[in-house]
């Protein structure tokens, strides 16, 4: 038993930290720390900078240009990125599609797509969910019918994150309606420039645009865009979903939020001549979530250590997902409460790049209610917490 990092890990942390200090542009760090959206170019530039060190694709083997990080290195890298305010690169090409192509793609697909993901030539988005499918992903209805050397795709996908920036989409489509719903699904790559594809924004509860719906109207897709075998897509999709997600608990981000929250609570007048951090009710909630997070961080490290030793995290990911989302949501609740009445203003224009609008109340205060509402998604997306509990009940408890 040893709860400290190894010398090698500490050296790696130092290397990452100094790289970030040297290379991360301050305007990106500021916006990321404030929780504001970035431009596509910001992501791409940062991706190119990281790839100089081959630090972009953590789920890929080194021979394909991946980082080859160990689980602890991934964790340390993520912690340092969050701490410095480096943007989280969208996972769709790098962490989702890439591993699927490496595992199941043809040599031509590997040769064509992987380098373009790494250098940012292609921005990918995900076409899994449909309006009717929700937690029951296998019930998807988008159809691909073979017609010569093309598929003709019709249907609708939704919750397509950052689809507005994307060039390509990887989709689960139904190629057969025989047998169980899972058996007739295929994994298809679609160029978003193809005629018949339409992307429409979904505005989320707090007023932001991060997700989209995608409509397919007789979209012609060449058969060589099929990954693996026809009707085997469910296997690839599960592979993708089960793919180890070091950061699923969001510990690094939560620690940064906690720091910010403590700073706000220290700076905020309680209205009665004291500081909010000395208000017993507020301080109790703060202490409880801080303790939960301390425990969560170690729980996360325990799972990582098991992964490092070659164990495959199964239901543990579900545990991390549930508790991690609860803690991050509680933090977002405390953030909005901390600023009191100044949580009320809704000022999206203020957050646009180059805005010279004046804020109401302390800097950033107007953001926290929006973030609180937006963070409700943590317990919904990627398999709701209810689905995660079903999984744990079955896998760990055998109920």
């Amino acid at each position, binding site marked *: 038993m040893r709860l400290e990092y190894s010398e090698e890990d500490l050296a790696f942390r130092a290397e990452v930290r100094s790289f970030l200090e040297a290379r991360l542009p301050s305007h990106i760090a500021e916006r990321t720390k404030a929780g504001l959206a970035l431009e596509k170019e910001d992501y791409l530039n940062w991706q190119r900078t990281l790839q100089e060190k081959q630090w972009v694709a953590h789920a890929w083997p080194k021979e394909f240009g991946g980082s080859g990080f160990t689980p602890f290195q991934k964790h340390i890298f993520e912690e340092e990125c969050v701490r410095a305010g480096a943007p989280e690169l969208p996972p769709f090409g790098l962490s989702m599609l890439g591993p699927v192509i490496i595992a199941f793609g043809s040599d031509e697909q590997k040769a064509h797509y992987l380098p373009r993901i790494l250098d940012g030539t292609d921005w990918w988005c995900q076409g899994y*969910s449909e309006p009717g499918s*929700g*937690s*029951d992903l296998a*019930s998807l209805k988008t159809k691909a019918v073979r017609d010569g050397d093309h598929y003709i795709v019709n249907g609708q996908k*939704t*919750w397509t994150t950052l689809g507005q920036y994307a060039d390509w989409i990887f989709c689960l489509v139904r190629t057969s309606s025989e047998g169980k719903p899972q058996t007739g699904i295929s994994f298809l790559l679609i160029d978003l420039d193809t005629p018949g594809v339409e992307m429409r924004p*979904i*505005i*989320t*509860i*707090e*007023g932001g645009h991060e997700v989209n719906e995608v409509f397919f109207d007789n979209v012609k897709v060449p058969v060589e865009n099929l990954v693996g075998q026809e009707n085997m897509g469910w296997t690839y999709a599960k592979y993708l979903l089960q793919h180890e997600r070091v950061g699923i608990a969001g510990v690094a981000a939560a620690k940064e939020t906690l720091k910010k929250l403590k700073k706000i609570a220290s700076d*905020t*007048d*309680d*209205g*009665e001549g004291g500081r909010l951090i000395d*208000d017993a*009710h*507020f301080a109790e909630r703060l202490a409880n979530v801080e303790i939960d997070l301390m425990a969560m961080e170690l729980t996360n490290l325990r799972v990582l250590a098991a992964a490092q030793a070659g164990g495959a995290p199964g239901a543990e990911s579900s545990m991390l997902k549930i508790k991690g989302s609860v803690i991050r949501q509680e933090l977002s*609740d405390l953030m*909005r*409460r901390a600023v*009191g*009445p*100044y*949580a*009320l*203003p*809704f*000022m999206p224009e203020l957050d646009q790049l180059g805005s010279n609008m*004046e804020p*109401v*109340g302390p800097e950033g205060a107007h953001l926290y*209610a*929006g973030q*609180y*509402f*937006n963070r*409700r*998604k943590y*317990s*919904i*997306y990627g398999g*709701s*917490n*209810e689905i995660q*509990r079903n999984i744990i009940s079955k896998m760990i408890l055998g109920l």
Partner: protein
Amino acid sequence: MDFNLSDDHRMLKDMVSRFVREQCDFESRLKLISSEKGHDEAVWAQMAELGLVAAVLPERVGGLGGSGLDIMVVAEELGRKIVVEPFLATAVLGAGLLAEEGAEGRGPALLDDVIGGGHKLALAHYEPGARYNAAKVDATIAGGKLSGSKSLVINGGDADTLVVSAKDGDKLVLALVAKDAEGVAIKAFKTHDGFGAAEVTFTDVAVAADDVLLSGDAAEAALGRALARATLALCAESLGAMENARDATLEYLRTRTQFGVPIGKFQVLQHRLVDVCLEIEQVRSIVLLAASKLDAGDRDKHLSAAKALVGRVGRMVAEEAVQMHGGIGVTWELELAHVAKRLVMIDHYFGDTDYHLKRFQKLSKAA
């Protein structure tokens, strides 16, 4: 003991309920909250015409009641459709103050126009940095000049006249200031729950004797009553919004299918909706109790109990309803998302759960 509404209250409730169903639909609200004005003048005019301002004012000034239950009945129905028209600011806060028995000067004469919907009001009281402390007033009136800053003035960008609190020496004064008076700077903005508010700064604004509505102990007492009425109205609005959220969630559980069955067949969701229902019944009880105590000596203890419980349950109902809706629950296009935002943001007006829990503790220990 009798918990049935009187015939008058039943009629009032039905009338408001019908009106908001017909005139305050969600599609219109979506457009309004993205408009500059933020609400619909025509709808407000109709609301006034239906007597919704009068309903919360005493007969002495041409009103129709003004009891706690009057406020509760109207506000609950408005809350049910999260109506954005300035009922709270103009009727409950502003007109309520103008209708005070001790009110003097030009204020009371404005009431007819306010009741008719032709003149809108706002109370400029809380100050920057005061958080929820209503006792902190640093704005001053000296030599007929008002100076100071007011924060998060509900409807502050839209009101024709502001009722402003300030100190004349040690004495609290409530004075009327026209929105376009010299020295008034209004910075208007929207709130997350779709309402309008403003930061207002007064710099040597002329206040004539005729502008002074109330002063001294009378002003303190009137302000206390106004804040109590507004707190009650917000609690009742929250109750209406909770019932909207509950009904929408129940409907969703009945109709949304997953894995081949309506999701309402899943016991976990059933039990969570049951708990939501239980807590809403508790909120109805505490709001009724607070309404009945609006003119009693232990008014503030009961209002703090209500606001604290509304804050706690409001968050629970909002979060559970959104969660049970899944992804669709976090989209701008869904009424429930806006209901949830109103439920949560109500905690940020006139003192949050913590503030009112503490006030309740103090008042309950003293009792």
